[in-house]
């Protein structure tokens, strides 16, 4: 066992969702694989404030990406982490409210919201604290605590013969990852792909979902996206993101954008470029390069250019070498 492997397996697994192991990023190898056929559309839409008309901006981006949701059962998956409304840890309630409105407007058969936080068990009160109940119409009737939903098994996931996922997730036709644009002191950045950790049920795997740490953080991110990425869409809340010691203890960083697309690898790679991070150095993006596009020449950028919205997010010491040239 190498020192790096040791650190990955022990430290990461023991300290749970907070992480702390330097070895989660890779030095940039010479070339990424080509990835899937064709290019991926990613829309970068400017939204300077949560009081902007977010629904119109979101609609503009979704149309630029050519997403058709008519007749589909849509599950919105925000990033709800902590009781702390004064910070930018959680996906902003205005973004979720706008998404509910937009997906109804686009003809979805139903629009639900689901989340299963990694550490805190009181999901509903946390949603209340994040003003979800106040700002999202009929919130309680459309929300499912994914940690405590009924479950069904999926075969051969994360090294398990049977792995269990919430029925609300398995039954959705489209899962919209409403992630927050944040740095992550373990993975480099947490965006739409990492947000899928919240679909793993705590009632089976605990708080934190330690099984994922033992399987490996990048490995789990990729496995979850291999499982659900084909029926996913991403809308990343970068209106105000988090820099520094994210995903919980960092500081607010206005980026003034919503980033969206059906290729979550391409969306997260684009977000990284907006944040001044080189996506080709982020281990889980490299590992997911067969699922979607990391390289900029394979991404059809819609809306704003990267150059016009790029704002370097502060990186912790361990991740300084992720900085995009």
């Amino acid at each position, binding site marked *: 066992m190498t*020192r790096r492997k040791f650190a990955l397996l022990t430290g990461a697994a023991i300290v749970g969702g907070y992480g*702390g192991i330097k070895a989660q990023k890779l030095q940039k190898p010479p070339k990424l694989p080509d990835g899937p056929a064709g290019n991926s559309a990613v829309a970068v839409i400017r939204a300077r404030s949560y009081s902007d008309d977010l629904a119109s901006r979101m609609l503009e981006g979704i149309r630029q990406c050519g997403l058709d949701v008519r007749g589909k059962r849509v599950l919105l998956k925000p990033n709800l982490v902590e009781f702390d409304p004064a910070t930018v840890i959680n996906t902003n309630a205005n973004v979720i409210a706008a998404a509910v409105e937009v997906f109804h407007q686009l003809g979805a058969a139903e629009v639900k919201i689901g989340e299963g936080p990694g550490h805190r068990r009181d999901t*509903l009160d946390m949603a209340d604290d994040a003003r979800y109940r106040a700002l999202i119409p009929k919130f309680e009737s459309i929300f499912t605590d994914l940690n*405590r939903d009924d479950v069904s098994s999926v075969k051969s996931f994360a090294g398990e013969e049977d792995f269990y996922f919430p029925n609300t997730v398995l039954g959705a036709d489209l899962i919209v990852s409403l992630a927050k644009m944040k740095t992550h002191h373990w993975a480099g950045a947490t965006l739409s792909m990492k947000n899928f950790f919240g679909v793993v049920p705590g009632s089976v*795997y*605990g708080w934190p979902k*330690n099984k994922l740490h033992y399987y490996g953080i990048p490995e789990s991110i990729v496995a979850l996206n291999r499982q659900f990425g084909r029926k996913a869409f991403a809308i990343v809340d970068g209106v105000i993101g988090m820099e520094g010691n994210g995903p919980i203890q960092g500081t607010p960083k206005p980026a003034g954008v919503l980033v969206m697309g059906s290729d979550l690898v391409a969306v997260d790679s684009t977000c990284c470029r907006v944040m001044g991070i080189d996506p080709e150095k982020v281990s889980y993006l490299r590992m997911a390069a067969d699922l979607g596009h990391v390289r900029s020449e394979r991404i059809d950028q819609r809306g704003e250019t990267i150059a016009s919205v790029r704002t370097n997010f502060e990186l912790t010491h361990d991740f300084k070498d992720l900085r995009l040239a």
Partner: protein
Amino acid sequence: MGELYLESRQEFLRANQNPDGGWGYFPGKGSWLEPTTYAMLALHGTGSDPVLDRAWKLVRSWQRPDGSFRPSGEVNDGTWVTAHAVTLASVRGIDDASVRASVDWLLRVVGAEHNMWTRTGSFLHLIKARLDVSHEGWPWREGNATWIEPTAHTLVALKKIAGHYRGPEVEKRVRDGEQLVLSRRCTDGGWNYGTPNMLYFDLPSYPETTALALLGLDGVSDPAVSQGLDVARKFHAETKSSLGKAWLQIALRCHGKPVPTPAEGAYTSHDVMLASLELLGHPKGNYKLFQVGGRA
């Protein structure tokens, strides 16, 4: 005083028992062992014997050949809820071979970090957290690391059944588990899920896990327990978490600490686990069932 509070929650639980005898986390959902345990403890001694008998029959059907318990009928794996089943057996006065198999399973399971590699790594400062990995504790699932909540539930269960086991193993694991909980205390005096420090930054404690840690430390005489109780009282006054407040009511009462009686009022949530824990933590509730030899 408190009749509406108690009756509305008891009625909510009785009305939402599933036909199979168990309770889901929410009405209309499938039965799970965790909410079923709390509902059974909350209704214990309230004249609900047929209701509880049906629930116990379902719980027992979830035992695996290795003694562990599945968390629901849909899940095949044995998990941390095995401790709940042992606690229920103790409350119901059952001590048979199947209960002993569950205790044996609990005694066999340890946090995965309790191995030579991790202890050596900790010694050499390869793990970027101040973490004492010398104690065993219990994981959510076999093969994973130790965390506060499953360790606390297991300590409660093992302390309750310890009188039936004359060998040293139960006592040894209990004492070591208590030391683990004490070692995972946050610098603010409370407990979070089990990582008080990461990247050499101190992490804050949470209300619900502080309460659970204190339940696991029932009977322990240590200044850390007194400090933890002070933190718990502060959390109780300030937390926005209904779940946290409910667990704090239980823990503070079990430690004999004064805690305000919950405000009178009918139950308005749809959360089965919360209704049960709020019932258990009421001054007239069954919170003592979490204690060694506790009777409702």
